[in-house]
Structure formats: structure tokens, C-alpha cells
């Protein structure tokens, strides 16, 4: 509250203004009265002289007459007359040198005649002759009289002035008091008592609504209103700020995260208890600001880098930092730094040790093979992700594939397989150096990196030992198991600039080992060679060509007639596939069918073949040939790629009876998913189609298959037929097959009949049907009708001969 002050009357505005008015007025009045007195005095003297001069004018002619006539009486008369004027002290009229008349009043004792005041003297001229000076009249002023008059005049003027001034002072003071001072004083007193916080307002003094005072009062009211508003807002703001600050202080103090404020150099401005606990900041009794680098960071320069980056780019930055501890009590702290905008930075610290450990563990798990403890494929790739063929040391990549592991795994189960793999890993470990990098990248695929070895001789020595070691029998549950190993080798950097290239190279080498190991007893390992790459390239191009050929319908069908050996007449034809390659000539189905199976073209090819074969046989049957066509179906087409419904659909479209089509399958079909294959066969046979078992005798040729899968016919492989003579075992074998088939109620087709002898033997053995070059080579569809006619004609001859 304002302190109430009593304004003493002497310092009040009333007294001051009135005193000022009075003082100024009196001062000015004093100055001007002096000025007026001087002026009046000067003018009084001047006027007196003027009056005397005028007085002389009136008597001049009379005086000149008196002087001319030397008439003392007249002159005296004139002088006495002049003396009657109170301002005249003395009059002397002279004619030449003689004084004609003289008149004067008795002099005052205290005469104060101004010495510089000259008498008034006038020359007297002759009335009758111009320019003739005949005397003079001299008049001396009575300065006492003049002065007293002047003094009286000036006194009166000053008194008048003083009276006027007093009136002006009184009037001005009164008006000032009434019009200005009183309302101001009233306003001032009210303002003094005013308490704006209680919504008090000043009244505008009466009659001052339009004056400056009125405006002043309303301005003050407006100002106090705004002031009160602002004060209220300020008070509310401060209250909220205090609440907020208290809240944040609580948060700051009790937060589980460490919070700190620092400058860009890492000098801490403030930090909370959690920060101390998390960073294990040691308490030091010092006035110096604590440093962010003081805790035992593993590498505090990174932390300062983070701080600087955040400050420079004005962005929030965060990272994890390792805090070293005693006895291995390491701690991972997550530090997030945010610029506050005033050059300081705010940071939070949270303990992420648990998460970090899990991450490390998870990362290790991701790159580790849990069974063997070797790295897995991911670990291998990661470990060699940053290979540089110029600066990195050379090394050898060794890829190992266990031969026969799958069979062991299948036959004895996964636990046994795992035991084998663990034994393999133990042997690998024993045969390698600690500096070598070991990994298992697939089920039974291992990749080893021999660091520092870049030369075939050294690599071969070690790999031979390893290979021999791996090929030793494995003792499993008191049972000895033998297993081979194929090894492919690639060198860094010449065989690949990065790990994936190296793995591909090693795999190519490995594949070539696998392919060749079947036929010859070569070493179980092979180095990568560019030719392998070329072979792969060739294969790949062939794949492209095949894909192209299939899509453009470049594959051609050939038909090899099958005859009834009893009648010699045409029974049907086996559909064979031909690929006339534009560059490489005719490519054998033995080459391109496995290729098609590998690249997933087989089902498309199968559909095309079936479609074309049906179209063709429908045409021939309309032409009067009572025949069928047999279509080869590969393992991969069964059961879904070429479903029974799809086959029947094609038959229906060409209006073919079921006996017009025969499906040839191999024993491979019967070795996969037995149930599915069985259902597939049964479905087709139920629809009336016949199923032939192709290449009988080359595979397992288990009789149990023939029992379990209901077939119609078996085809004796041509290798038996070609070597068939009257006295060798093949003869017996063929005979046995024919007899056995007959006993099972199966018909027999003999393939590969190349001469009349074979034909005769087979006929004698009771083989029902046959095909081969002796009867006919496979022919194109266009030539088939002629071929059929030739066969039937031959049959007619044979029939007529026999």
C-alpha cells in the first residue's frame, strides 16, 4: 500500500503556483515601474522644455516689438507674464547688450537644478527687417516645480500599475486555483487514497470532462485498469509458474532417469540424484563445476562428440555409452541430449545395461550355430562383410558337404544326426588352427576360412588331412557309420572379391566334386576353376534357351511306334520330346528334362506334350489308325502339376476314349510320397487310363512296388534288350521279367529292339509288345502315317510268311 503523505501547505501546488504568480508579477512590476519612472521623468523634463519653448512662442513677437522699440515697460510686462507660469524660474529680455527687462521668482533653498539642463533662449528679430537680430529672450526653468510634477506623475503611474498588478495577481491566482489547482488537488487527493486493486476509479472533476484534467483522469483510470489486469495476470502466471516449477523440481529430484544440464564443453550446470547414482559420480567438495566426463566412461570423447553434434546441428542426439566399473561391474547408459536453445544442453541418462546385454546375446545368437558353436551363415557373412580385395590378407574358403548325412538323418532321426554333426565339428576343430574361422551354413554344410593360406599346395595338405579325418567311421551308439565328404575350395581374392562370391565359387567346386565322385575315385576335394564358372554359365544360358523354347513352342514331338509282337501290327506310339536348338543342334531329353525339372518348366512342358499328343492321336484315330499314345510323366508332375482331372479334361476336349492315352511313369514316382502317387494312379485307372512302368529293371525294380501299385504294363529297359542273346543272363532276366509280369497279370513292352533276332526272341518269350529302331525310329508326326502303313504292310507280310 502507498504510504499516506501529508503535503505541507508550503509545498502544495496552490501555494507554489500562487507564490510563483505573485513573485513573477511583482518582479516584472518592479522592473517596469523603474522603467516607467525613468521614462516619465525623462519625458516630464522634455515636456517641460517643450512647454517652455511653446510659452516663448506665444510672447516672441511681443518681445521683439518691445526690444525693437526698446520699450522696457512692454518687455517687463512680457517677462512678468512669463513668470506667472510656475515652471519658469527666471526671464531675461535683452536688446543688444543691454538688459531690457528681467523677472525672476525667489529661489528655493534646496534647489536641485540639473546642471545639464540648459535655459531656453531665443533670439529676437526685428519686426521690420528680416534677419536683423535685435536682442534675445532667455528663459530659465523652475526645475523644482517641474520635478515635483514629474515625481507626482510617476508616482501616480506606479501606483496605478501596482493596483493593476494586484488585480491581475488576484484574478490569475483565483482562476488558477479554481480552474486548475483545485481539480488537480482533488484528483491528487483521491488518487492518493485510491486502491486500484479494489477496482477503485477516479471521478472526473465537475466541468472537466473535456479538459486536459478530464483526459488525465480517464487516462489514469485506463492505466490503473490495465495495470490491475496486468498485475492479476502476472500474479496468476507466477502462481502457475511456481506450481510448475515445484512439479518439475519434484520430477527432477525423484526421476529414475538421470537428468543434467550442461554447456557444450561438458561443464555441468545442474544434475539430479539419479544422475549421480547412475554415473557413480563421486562427490567432491569443490566449487568448480562438475564435468560430464568425470564419471568413468569407457570412452568419453564419443560422449563429447555427441554433445558437440547436438549443439552444432541443434538436434536431439542419443547413443549408448559404456560406463566402466570396478570388478567388471560395467554399465550401459543411454544418453539423450537435447539443445535448450540458449547454448546449454539438457540430457537424460537411463540404465540400459539389461537391454544391451540382451542385445549382445541376441546378436551373438543370430550369428552362432547353437549345435556346434560355430558361426552360422549370417555370422560368416557378417564377419567377412567388409572384405577388401586390395588391402585384406589372402585366405582360403573351404566348403564341406557331408555325403550320406541325409540318409543317416532320415534313417536314424535328428538326434543321431545332431550327434554326427557334433562329432564332425569336433573333428574339424581338431584339424584346424585356432585362427581359422569355422561355420556351419546349412544342415551338413560347413565353411572354413583358413587365414593366411593362399597357395594350393599348403591348402591341399591341410584339406587332405581334414578329408581323411572326416571319412573315418563314426561310432554312434556302439554302431559304426561311414560317411564321405565333398570339399570345394576357393581363394580370396582371386576366386571372389566378397564372401558371397567366394561361397558360390566354393560351392561350384563342391558340386563338381559331387558329380564326379560317383563315377571315379578322385580326391574328395576340388579347387575352384574358372571353367566351373563357365559350365555354370553354360547351364544358365541353356536354361534361358529352354525357357524361351517352351514359351515359343519350339519343342517338337516324335512318335516311336509300338507294335503287337504277336500280330506285328501297330498298337500305339511312345511320345518323345525333341528340342532342336538353333545353335547346338538337337538336344537330348536326358539333358533338358532334368534341367526343366530344376527350373520349374516341367509342368508347362508336360501340359504342352499332353495337349499336342492328344490332338495328334485324335487326328490319326479319325484317319482310321486304331492306336494309342503313351506319354511320359515325370516325378515332379505328380500329383499336382499334372492332375488326373487335367488329363481327363484334355481327353474330353479331343473326344478321346480313355484307352487312347497311356501314362508312363518311372520307379522314381513310387519312391516319393507313396500315398499321393497311389491315389493319383488309382484315379487315372478308375477313369480307364492305363499306367505303364517305364525303365523297368534299372532301379530297385522291387516286386513289392508292382504289388502295391496297380499297373497295367511294364516296359523292359532297352539296356536289357540290346545285350540280350540266347545265352547270357540278360536273356534270362528278360525272360524272368516277362514270366513274372505275366504271372502278375501285367503286359510287357520291350524297348530297344534293334534286330530281327531280338524281335524273334522276345516273341518266343511271349513278350506282348515291342518298340525299337528295328521296327521304327521315332518319327515326326508328319511321317507317322506313312510309317504306320509300312509297319502294317510288314505285318501283313510276316503274317503271310508265318
Amino acid at each position, binding site marked *: 500500500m502507498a504510504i499516506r503523505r501529508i503535503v505541507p501547505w508550503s509545498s502544495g501546488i496552490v501555494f507554489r503556483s500562487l507564490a510563483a504568480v505573485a513573485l513573477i508579477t511583482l518582479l516584472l512590476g518592479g522592473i517596469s515601474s523603474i522603467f516607467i519612472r525613468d521614462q516619465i521623468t525623462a519625458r516630464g523634463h522634455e515636456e517641460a522644455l517643450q512647454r517652455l519653448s511653446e510659452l516663448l512662442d506665444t510672447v516672441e513677437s511681443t518681445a521683439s516689438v518691445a526690444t525693437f522699440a526698446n520699450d522696457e515697460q*512692454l518687455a517687463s510686462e512680457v517677462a512678468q507674464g512669463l513668470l506667472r507660469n510656475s515652471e519658469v524660474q527666471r526671464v531675461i529680455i535683452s536688446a543688444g547688450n543691454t538688459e531690457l527687462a528681467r523677472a525672476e521668482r525667489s529661489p528655493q533653498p534646496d534647489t536641485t537644478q540639473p546642471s545639464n539642463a540648459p535655459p531656453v533662449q531665443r533670439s529676437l528679430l526685428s519686426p521690420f527687417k528680416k534677419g536683423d537680430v535685435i536682442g534675445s529672450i532667455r528663459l530659465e526653468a523652475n526645475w523644482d516645480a517641474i520635478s515635483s510634477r514629474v515625481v507626482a506623475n510617476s508616482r501616480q503611474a506606479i501606483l496605478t500599475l501596482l493596483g493593476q498588478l494586484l488585480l491581475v495577481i488576484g484574478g490569475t491566482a483565483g482562476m488558477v486555483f479554481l480552474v486548475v489547482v483545485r481539480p488537480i488537488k482533488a484528483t491528487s487527493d483521491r488518487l492518493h487514497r485510491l486502491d486500484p486493486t479494489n477496482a477503485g476509479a477516479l471521478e472526473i472533476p465537475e466541468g472537466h470532462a473535456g479538459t486536459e484534467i478530464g483526459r488525465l483522469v480517464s487516462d489514469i483510470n485506463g492505466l490503473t485498469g490495465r495495470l490491475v489486469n496486468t498485475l492479476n495476470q502476472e500474479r496468476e502466471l507466477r502462481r502457475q509458474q511456481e506450481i510448475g516449477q515445484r512439479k518439475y523440481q519434484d520430477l527432477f529430484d525423484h526421476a529414475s532417469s538421470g537428468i543434467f544440464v550442461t554447456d557444450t564443453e561438458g561443464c555441468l550446470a545442474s544434475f539430479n540424484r539419479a544422475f549421480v547414482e547412475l554415473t557413480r559420480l563421486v562427490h567432491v567438495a569443490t566449487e568448480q563445476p562438475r564435468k560430464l566426463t568425470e564419471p568413468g566412461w569407457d570412452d568419453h570423447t564419443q560422449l563429447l562428440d555427441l554433445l558437440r553434434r547436438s549443439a552444432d546441428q541443434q538436434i536431439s542426439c542419443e547413443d549408448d555409452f559404456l560406463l566402466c566399473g570396478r570388478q567388471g561391474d560395467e554399465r550401459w547408459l543411454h544418453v539423450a541430449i537435447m539443445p535448450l536453445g540458449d547454448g546449454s544442453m539438457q540430457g537424460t541418462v537411463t540404465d540400459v545395461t539389461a537391454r544391451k546385454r540382451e542385445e549382445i546375446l541376441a546378436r551373438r545368437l543370430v550369428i552362432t550355430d547353437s549345435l556346434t558353436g560355430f558361426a552360422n551363415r549370417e555370422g560368416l557373412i557378417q564377419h567377412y562383410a567388409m572384405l577388401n580385395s586390395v588391402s585384406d590378407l589372402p585366405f582360403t574358403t573351404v566348403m564341406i558337404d557331408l555325403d550320406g548325412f541325409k540318409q543317416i538323418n532320415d534313417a536314424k532321426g535328428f538326434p543321431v544326426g545332431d550327434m554326427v554333426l557334433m562329432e564332425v565339428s569336433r573333428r574339424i576343430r581338431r584339424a584346424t588352427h585356432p585362427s581359422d574361422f569355422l561355420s556351419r551354413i546349412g544342415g551338413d554344410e560347413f565353411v572354413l576360412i583358413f587365414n593366411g593360406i593362399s597357395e594350393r599346395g599348403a591348402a591341399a595338405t591341410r584339406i587332405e588331412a581334414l578329408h581323411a579325418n572326416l571319412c573315418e567311421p563314426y561310432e554312434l551308439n556302439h554302431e559304426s557309420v561311414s560317411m564321405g565328404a565333398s570339399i570345394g575350395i576357393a581363394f580370396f581374392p582371386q576366386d571372389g572379391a566378397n564372401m558371397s562370391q567366394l561361397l558360390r565359387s566354393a560351392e561350384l567346386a563342391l558340386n563338381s566334386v559331387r558329380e564326379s565322385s560317383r563315377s571315379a575315385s578322385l580326391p574328395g576335394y576340388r579347387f575352384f576353376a574358372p571353367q566351373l564358372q563357365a559350365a555354370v554359365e553354360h547351364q544358365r544360358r541353356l536354361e534361358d534357351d529352354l525357357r524361351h523354347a517352351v514359351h515359343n513352342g519350339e519343342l517338337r514331338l516324335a512318335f516311336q511306334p509300338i507294335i503287337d509282337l504277336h500280330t506285328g501290327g501297330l498298337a500305339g506310339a511312345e511320345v518323345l520330346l525333341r528340342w532342336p536348338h538353333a545353335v547346338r543342334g538337337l538336344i537330348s531329353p536326358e539333358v533338358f528334362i532334368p534341367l526343366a525339372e530344376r527350373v520349374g518348366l516341367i509342368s508347362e512342358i508336360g501340359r504342352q506334350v499332353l495337349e499336342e499328343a492328344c490332338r495328334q492321336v485324335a487326328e490319326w484315330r479319325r484317319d482310321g489308325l486304331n492306336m494309342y499314345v503313351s506319354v511320359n510323366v515325370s516325378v515332379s508332375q505328380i500329383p499336382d502339376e499334372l492332375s488326373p482331372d487335367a488329363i481327363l479334361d484334355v481327353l474330353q476336349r479331343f473326344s478321346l476314349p480313355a484307352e487312347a492315352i497311356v501314362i508312363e511313369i518311372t520307379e522314381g514316382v513310387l519312391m516319393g510320397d507313396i500315398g499321393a502317387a497311389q491315389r493319383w494312379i488309382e484315379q487315372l485307372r478308375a477313369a480307364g487310363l492305363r499306367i505303364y512302368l517305364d525303365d523297368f529293371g534299372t532301379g530297385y525294380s522291387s516286386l513289392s512296388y508292382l504289388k502295391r501299385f496297380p499297373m497295367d504294363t511294364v516296359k523292359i529297359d532297352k539296356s536289357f534288350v540290346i545285350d540280350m542273346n540266347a545265352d547270357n543272363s540278360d536273356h534270362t532276366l528278360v525272360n524272368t521279367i516277362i514270366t513274372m509280369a505275366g504271372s502278375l497279370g501285367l503286359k510287357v513292352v520291350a524297348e530297344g529292339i534293334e534286330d530281327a533276332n531280338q524281335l524273334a526272341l522276345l516273341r518266343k518269350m511271349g513278350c506282348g509288345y515291342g518298340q525299337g529302331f528295328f521296327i521304327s525310329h521315332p518319327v515326326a508326326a508328319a511321317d507317322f502315317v506313312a510309317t504306320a502303313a509300312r509297319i502294317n504292310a510288314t505285318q501283313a507280310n510276316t503274317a503271310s510268311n508265318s
Partner: protein
Amino acid sequence: MKAIHTLLLILLILLIPTPGWPATTEDWVLIANPKAGIGRLTQDEVTNIFLGRYRRLASGVTAEPLDQPADSALRARFYRQLVDKSLAEINAYWARLVFSGKTRPPGVASSSEDAMQRVSLHPETLAYIEKSRVDARVVVVFEIVE
């Protein structure tokens, strides 16, 4: 007062005949008694004598001026030619001296003949008459030379 004077002056100027006119009044001469022993007088001396400045000449001879009658044309002509004043002015002059002073105006002759008579009888007398009337009884002591 002054206005009336001025008016009178204008009237007088209008009334006064110009010198080119045929003279109605003759030229005058100042005469004295031959026995008085007065020689030739100057115009100033004549003026001083006739206007009362002094009545005694430098030679010690007393001179008593004598005017023509107040309404005579000669008198007006005399004062006009002597001091270039009208008779009214001359009369006003004398009025002031006569009223408050001791100096007396000249005596007045009833006619020129009377003036001749008095000059011849009183040697100290000076008078002006028509030039044509001058005879042996008097001597001319002053005349205006045109």
C-alpha cells in the same frame, strides 16, 4: 484671432493696386526743415524714427515723425514701401506699444499741407508728402528710389 489676421491680410493684398497700374497716389518724399540740419537719411534711420525705435539722430538732432491721416493712401504707400507692411500691421504694432509701453506713435497731420506747415514750423519734425508738393520750405531727406 490669427485667422482673422490672415483674412485681413488677404483682403488687403487684394485691395492693394499693383505698381503697374496708373498711380492714384503719387510718390512720396521725406521732408525736413532745412534749418534742422538734417542731412540725407538712410531707410533704416527712417524706419527707426517712424516706428519709435529712437527719436534722436546720431548727430544729436531730435526727430519727431509725423504721419499722414490714418485713412490716407499716401500713408499706406509710405509704410508699404518703407517696411513692406500694411497699415493694419503698423496699427497692430503700435497698439501693443501704446497699450503696455511708454513709446508713442508719430503724430498725425491732417493733410500734406498741414505736414508741410508743421515741418516748416518745427524744425525737429519729419514728414512724408507727395513728391510734387515739395517746395522751398522743406528739404527732402529721403526718398525711395525705385
